[in-house]
């Protein structure tokens, strides 16, 4: 099981590392990094699905009968674009949060809101 499906085990380990980083860190930038690791692991999962034993890259060439499945690659090209867009929106928000609060620590920012509310 582990020997034949080792790629999946590695990928799922990577996913969990990413997800753990998202949940455990209060720093917004670190959260985004975790999110990226998580997403990239899923991309790798898709790409590994496209592998066919003995298959060559999916470019039509004479003398080659078996090709890898090209569809997952194409899908992941789209998903990568989505991931880039998400990261850029996230980073832009983190910058705006830093400008507004003077911190990128989620807990500190929340504490400042609470303090502001108490002051009113």
């Amino acid at each position, binding site marked *: 099981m582990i020997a034949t499906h080792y790629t999946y085990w590695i990928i799922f380990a990577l996913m969990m590392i990413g*997800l753990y980083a*998202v949940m455990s860190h209060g720093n*917004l930038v670190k*959260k*985004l990094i975790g*999110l990226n690791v*998580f*997403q990239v692991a*899923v991309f790798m*999962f*898709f790409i590994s*699905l496209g592998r066919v034993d003995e298959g060559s890259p999916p470019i039509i060439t004479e003398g080659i009968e078996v090709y890898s499945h090209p569809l*997952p690659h194409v*899908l992941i090209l*789209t*998903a990568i674009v*989505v991931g880039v*867009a*998400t990261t850029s*929106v*996230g980073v832009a*928000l*983190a910058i*705006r*949060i830093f400008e*507004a*609060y003077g911190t990128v620590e*989620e807990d500190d*920012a*929340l504490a400042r*809101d609470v303090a502001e509310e108490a002051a009113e």
Partner: protein
Amino acid sequence: MIDQLPALQVVVPLVCAAVCVLLRSAFAAWLLFTVAAVASLVTAVVLTVLVRDGETIGYDMGGWPAPVGIELVVDQANAVVLLLLGVIAVIVASYGRRSIEAEIRPRRVRMFYAALCMLLTGLMGIAVTGDAFNLFVFLEISSLSSYALIALGRRRRALLAAFQYLVIGTVGGTFLLIGVGLAFAVTGTLNMTDLADRLPALEGNRAVTGSVVFIFVGLAIKMAVFPLHAWLPGAYSEAPSVVSVVLAAVGTKVAIYAFARFAFTVFGIDVVFTDLPIGQAILVVGSLAMLAGAAVACFQQDFKRLLAWSSIGQVGMIVTGIGLATAGGVSAAYLHIINHAIIKGALFAAAGILLLNLGSTSLDSMAGLGRRMPLTFGAVVIGGLGLIGVPPTAGFASKWALAAALVEDDQWLILAILLASSLLAMVYVGRVIEVAWFRSPAGVDAAPSPAAEHAAAAANPGTVRVREGTPLLMAAPVALLAVASVYFGIDASLPSGLADGAARVLTGGGLP
């Protein structure tokens, strides 16, 4: 032309979004958004009429036939959602001009409309697509534009709310992607019809089980089902009024539609509700959501936050109907999707008018204003009664339908929970009505003369000042939604006809 309608449903707002970015004037951007909204509504109406007898309209994107190409599918199950999206878009186009002018910095306005067009594109796309991966892409389009829109709220808290939603939402979207990947791994297809053909043969396959769980958890985050609702109160209450209206009225509803589509037509009732305990799980979280959402709403000090928590309870009610997996339950869920969109749309729009006039949506600032802003608070009362489910409002019609479906299925405990949540709704709606109508205004004596009030306000800038007059373009949509919510309570034939049609298509007539 008619053949191209499913594609136009998505393409028109998409093109408008791109053109909005190029325009220099805010008015032109608004005009363009209005064009997109009206076009969406017209398209949705025509499509709804075309599929009214149970037909299915398929459209091959780019001329590539399914299952190789991406297929758009319109049937009764999603025509309702498209119609709802079109109606809310037109409402927002009318309501939004003045509201956006007041809340958004001038140089951001045209980009705001561009993002709004993208949000519409994404939501329409989720509803119309027949391809599992395409659904993920549209889900991310709608999510990304909503993160940007929420971040434009007037307080800095909006930024944090948007960021939190971004993190949770992306995890949800990626879960959906994993689920689609697992389904693709065992079937080799992404087309929903094709998946539905191939999945039953794989019953009991572990990858299919994993796929079901990942897709449902991913969508549950987008639907804000109770334990996964953490992003919703912040996002709804901090977003600009217009965005709150769109998200509260249709944002979660589209994810609920996608959930129903996956559950009933892609994986099938056997896999989801018979082999896996997804149905029971939904009933449990739905019941918890009804209680928790309504209970927490009772303790809110801010009107928009109160409405947001009430939405969590109402989403619980909708998913409970789906979790029953009976034709009656699904029909009740659809009916409540329609009615709740109308009611919450009206309430959040009313909150926007309050924000425009009072500069705040806190309950304290609303004290005693019922008599001075009778139209707005009249809409709040009608909407509130709809949330409780008092006849003759639309909320009563859908609660009644859900209660009937629960009785039919012998779910007495859940019926009791539904009633309890209605009682809790009475508490939080009652608080709003009490504050607005029966309390004396803050900082001024009861029934002051306008001149005295003006003097008081000038002497003490901290007191609430009521600016007279709400723009007609803002007031009319609120009034329209409020009237519709009463009309659909008295004559429910239109929404319940649509809901029954949707339930028939989804459950395939094979259920009692």
